[in-house]
């Protein structure tokens, strides 16, 4: 893996921060005011779903319980996403200070970071970092002299299951079970880890908190759009000269991002990873924002030479592999969609059947139990729609079987 050579720059997360300063400030503000500040900032979850962070925190703060938990979701399994890895390696102070502030705000004693098994090489450095925080009294008893404020963080290693990024599956996994999503409600804010009120936040959401505490919600809100405030980290890969992690204000157009990363002859952009949507040239003026082209940050770029059916095949294989198998729409549906892709590749299909598969995809979006099955048809539907000509005008058998 490459190590960072030049300093990263960006409006919020990459703008520079001194460890502990936001904790110090937060400990001198009362909890209600912290919650208000975060509500005013309009911060929304960066893990994909975009739930207002302050609502989650307020609900857990209001829940009565002798024990509460803060979980940092570092499962980062969405294909094409790697910004959480960069944050954990290069900016752990933001992530962990965010967790300490969350703990102070809602009255939690224990934090857990759920680290994907693929990132096992981060386990030791993170544990060492946490040990350093304990030594400097940013964790443990009476944090920074605040009487009675106890909080500690442990790292839990996942074992290679994409669905464990879904917050209730993640909690199941932490409790020693198969990573199968739960029915919701109840939500983790009331009945989370060990049945106790729990905040599950993405790495990047937590890393935004210290900056909001230090510089205030007014400053934060100035960035982005009305419905998507602040900045976002984008993990850019595929056909471009400068792939990597970029911090940009929400509302940046796809075309602007393409220019920034020196992408040439771009035919398609997959926004949001395998579970996201694929856009064609006529759609590059879409804005990256919750209200337009929403994303947890994965941006994959495809140039004119790429076969979109091969791309779709790759995504559908991923979902067939990663479906937890608990509910039928997802378990069977993804297999059927993948079969459909292979039929088109072979030139052995009817439009009547493909239309049925599209209907199936739409049913999966509503009938699946968790976000995996609800979003896995997105790529299928958007690629068939937005690259219709390329896909159905191809020579029998296509060019590029997988």
């Amino acid at each position, binding site marked *: 893996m490459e190590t960072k050579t030049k300093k990263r720059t960006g409006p919020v997360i990459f703008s520079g921060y001194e460890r502990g300063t936001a904790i110090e400030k937060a400990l001198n503000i009362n909890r209600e005011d912290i919650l208000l500040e975060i509500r005013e900032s309009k911060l929304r979850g960066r893990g994909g779903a975009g739930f207002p962070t302050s609502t989650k925190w307020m609900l857990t703060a209001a829940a009565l319980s002798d024990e509460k938990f803060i979980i940092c979701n570092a499962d980062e399994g969405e*294909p*094409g996403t*790697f910004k959480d890895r960069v944050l954990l390696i290069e900016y752990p102070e933001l992530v962990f200070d965010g967790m300490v502030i969350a703990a102070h705000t809602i009255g939690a004693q224990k934090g857990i970071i759920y680290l994907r098994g693929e990132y096992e090489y981060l386990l030791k450095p993170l544990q060492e970092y946490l040990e350093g925080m304990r030594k400097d009294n940013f964790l443990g008893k009476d944090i920074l002299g605040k009487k009675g404020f106890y909080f500690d963080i442990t790292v839990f290693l996942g074992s290679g299951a994409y669905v464990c990024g879904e917050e209730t599956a993640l909690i199941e996994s932490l409790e020693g079970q198969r990573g199968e999503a739960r029915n919701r409600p109840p939500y983790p804010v009331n009945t989370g880890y060990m049945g106790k009120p729990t905040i599950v936040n993405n790495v990047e959401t937590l890393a935004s908190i210290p900056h909001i505490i230090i510089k205030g919600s007014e400053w934060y809100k100035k960035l982005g759009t009305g419905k998507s405030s602040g900045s976002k980290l984008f993990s850019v890969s595929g056909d471009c000269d400068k*792939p990597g992690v970029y911090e940009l204000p929400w509302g940046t157009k796809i075309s602007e991002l393409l220019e920034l990363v020196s992408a040439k002859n771009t035919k398609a952009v997959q926004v949001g990873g395998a579970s996201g949507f694929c856009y064609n040239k006529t759609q590059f003026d879409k804005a990256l924002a919750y209200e337009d082209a929403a994303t947890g940050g994965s941006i994959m770029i495809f140039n004119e030479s790429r076969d979109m059916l091969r791309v779709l095949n790759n995504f559908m294989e991923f979902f067939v592999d990663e479906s937890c198998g608990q509910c039928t729409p997802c378990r069977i549906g993804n297999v059927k969609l993948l079969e459909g892709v292979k039929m088109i590749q072979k030139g052995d299909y009817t439009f009547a059947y493909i239309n049925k598969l599209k209907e199936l995809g739409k049913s999966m979006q509503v009938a699946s139990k968790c976000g995996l099955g609800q979003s896995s048809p997105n790529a299928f539907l958007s690629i068939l729609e937005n690259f219709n000509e390329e896909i159905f005008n191809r020579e029998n058998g296509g060019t590029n079987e997988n």
Partner: protein
Amino acid sequence: MLVEEKNALTEEIELMIKKLGKKRSALLSILHGIQMKHRHVSEYAQQEIARLLDIHPVEVFSVLSFYAFLNATPKGRNLVRICRTISCDMKGKDIIVRAIERELNMKIGHTTSDNKFTVEYVNCLGLCDEGPAMAINDQVFTKLTPEKAVKLLSKVK
């Protein structure tokens, strides 16, 4: 399995439970610990974990079988995982796989006859901007070329 080996395994599990506590939530960490050391969680180990955690062995197997990185049967001494997801695919993961298959005289998804390597596909490793990417045990390598990949394998003991 020799009696001494069995006893050692039991002791290992006991030690982990002592550290993590005798509770269901310790299960995945225990499985992970055994997997790391022995490269699989044998039937005997599953039974011992179940006995010491006071749960049914089927529960242990059910959890074990759910996770891609845990397995009940042994693999090669070294685990090589090559990313098959689209960004690495576009950067040429196929030629990396073919080079490794030729060099090790094996097919992906299998173990070499000397038991030194198991080579598998894995979903996105989160290194998509530096593809093609692969992991050898718990280390990751990026921007692979066929030659670089083979060289990395030749350095493995």
